C-alpha cells in the first residue's frame, strides 16, 4: 500500500450512459466492493472536480476510457506522474471520454492540480481503450472483459 500522510484515492471517470465511457465508474465500483483499507473510491463525470478531490491525497489512481484509434479495444494504458514528475504531454489523454467541450479533460485536470501545487506525490492513470461512446449504449464486450484486468492493475499499483 502506498504510504503517506493523506489517503489513497481511486477515481473512476466517465459517463454511465455513453458506451465504453462507463468503464471508469464500473471499475471504480468494483474496487469499492473490495473494501480495501485506507482507500477511498469515487466516481466522477467532471474531471474539474478531480482537482478538488485529489487535494491532500498521498496517491491517486484514475481510471477512464480512452479513445485511441489503431489500438485494440479493451487494451490497458498506464501512465504515471505526480508532484515532482514531468508534466503530461499536451496531447496525453486528450481523447478520454470526458475530454469534452466546456468540460476539462483529464490531462487538464492533472496539470491544473500540478500548477496549483495540489497534485499528490503519485498519480497513476489507468486507461481502457474504448470502442464506442454511443449514447444509451452499454460496455462493449472487449471493454467488459477488461474490467477485471483493470481492477488487478489498480490493485497492483496500490501495492507498489
Amino acid at each position, binding site marked *: 500500500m502506498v504510504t503517506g500522510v493523506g489517503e489513497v484515492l481511486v477515481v473512476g471517470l466517465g459517463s454511465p*450512459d455513453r458506451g465504453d465511457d462507463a468503464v471508469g465508474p464500473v471499475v471504480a465500483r468494483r474496487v469499492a466492493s473490495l473494501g480495501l483499507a485506507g482507500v477511498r473510491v469515487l466516481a466522477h463525470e467532471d474531471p*474539474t472536480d478531480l482537482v478538488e478531490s485529489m487535494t491532500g491525497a498521498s496517491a491517486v489512481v484514475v481510471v477512464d476510457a480512452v479513445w485511441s484509434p489503431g489500438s485494440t479495444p479493451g487494451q490497458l494504458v498506464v501512465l504515471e506522474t505526480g508532484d515532482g514528475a514531468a508534466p503530461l504531454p499536451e496531447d496525453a489523454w*486528450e481523447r478520454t471520454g470526458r475530454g469534452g467541450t466546456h468540460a476539462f479533460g483529464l490531462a487538464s485536470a492533472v*496539470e491544473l492540480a500540478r500548477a496549483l501545487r495540489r497534485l499528490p506525490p503519485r498519480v497513476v492513470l489507468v486507461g481502457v481503450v474504448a470502442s464506442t461512446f454511443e*449514447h444509451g449504449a452499454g460496455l462493449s464486450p472487449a471493454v467488459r472483459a477488461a474490467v477485471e484486468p483493470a481492477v488487478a492493475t489498480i490493485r497492483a499499483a496500490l501495492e507498489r
Partner: protein
Amino acid sequence: MSHKLRDGGQVMHVGTLARVEGEGAMHIELRDGKVETVQLRIYEPPRFYEAFLRGRAYTEPPDITARICGICPVAYQTSSCWAMEDACGVSVPEAIRLMRRLLYCGEWIESHALHMFLLHTPDFLGYESAIAMAADHPAVVESALRMKKAGNDLMDVVGGRSVHPINVRLGGFYRMPTVAELRAVRPKLERALDEALAAMPLLASFDFPEMEQPYEYLALRSAAGYPIESGDVVTSAGKAFRVQEFTQHIEEQHVEHSNALHATLDGGGPYVVGPLARYTLNYDRLSPLAQETARAAGLGETCRNPFRSLLVRGVELVEAYHEALRIIDGWVDGVPPSVPVPARAGEGFGASEAPRGVLFHRYVIDDAGIIQDAQIVPPTSQNQPSIEADLRTMVEMWTELDDHALSHRCEQAIRNYDPCISCATHFLDLTVDRR
C-alpha cells in the same frame, strides 16, 4: 485539415472540436481577404434522443434527457418536467417551482464559474489555457474552483448528486432537502458570493474587442425575478408569446453542413439566446445587488458585445448565489416533495434558461403515457447561425493575422457563446494554405 481552392482562395478548417457534449468542426473559406463561407459543423446528440424517446414512458424524459449534457442536466430535467406536466394538465405548487429554481442556481453556478474563470478569462489574460494561467494567477483559479464547488454542493444537497441529479421527478422531487441541510450549504454560498463580487473588478479591467451584435435577442421572462427555471418568451423586437406557442415562431431547418438543425425566428435572420439575451431583456428583473454589480463593471442596461458576455455571466453568477441564499432563507420544512402527474393523451411544452440559453422541449403522449413524439431545441442550435455570423464579421476584421492567431481568435468568438462544442484549445488542429 485544409486544402487549396483552384482559384487561389483559402480554406481554413478546424478539425474535431470536441467529443462528448457534442462534436463539431469549423470551416471557413477566404477569397482575397473576403469571407466566402463560414460553417460551424455540429453533431448534436438531441436528435438521437428525440428518436430514442418515442415509445418510452412519459415519466422517463427527466432522467433520459439529463444524459444529453454533463454540464446542464438540470436544464434538461426542468424543461422536460414542465413539458410533460403541461401535457398532463398539471401545475406544480409554487414551493416546487422554487426548489427547481434553487437546483437550477447550482447548475448556473457550476457552469458559469467554470466557463468564466477556467475557459474565458485565459483568453483575456493572454494564456493558452487555465493551466498556463494558474502558474501566474493561482489565486484566481483557486477562487474559481471554490466558486464552482459551492454550486456542486448545492446540487448535491438538492439534487442528490453534483452531476446528473437523481432527485428530480415529474411533479417535483423524490425528497425535499431539509432546512438544516440547506442551511449547511449557506456559508459556502456566502463565501462564493463574496469571491464572485471580488473578482468582478479584474474581469471589468479586461480589454474587450469592440463589437455590437445586430441580431434579435430571445429569452424567457417572468412576472418576477430573473429568468432561470421558467418564464414566457420575449424578444428584443418586442415579440412576446407563451412557451406553448414556441413552435409557431421558431422553425428548425436542416442545413447541409451540420446535423444540428438551424433555428430561425419568424423566418428572420439569426437570433441569440443566452446570457446577453437574458440580461438585455431582463435587467429590471435582477436583484439590486446584481444591478449594482453590473453598473460597477461598466455594463449598461443592455449588452450586445459578445466578448462582454464574460461580465454578464459574472452578474448572473452573483444573481445565482444571491437567489440561492434567498430561497434557502425562506424555506420551511414539511413541503410535500411532489404532486401526482397522471397520464392523459396530449401535447405539452416546456422551456427553461439553461446556462447558455433557452432550452425547449415538446412531447406528445397517448392515454397510457407512452411518448408518441419528442422535440428538443437546445440553445446551441439556436445560436449556431449567429455564431457563424459573428465569425464572418470577425474573420474579415482579422485576415491579417497569422494562422495561429486567427485560429485562436475564432475559438474566442465561439467561446463567447460557451456552446456545447469544444472550448478546449488543445483539441483544435488547424492548418491553413495561403497563396
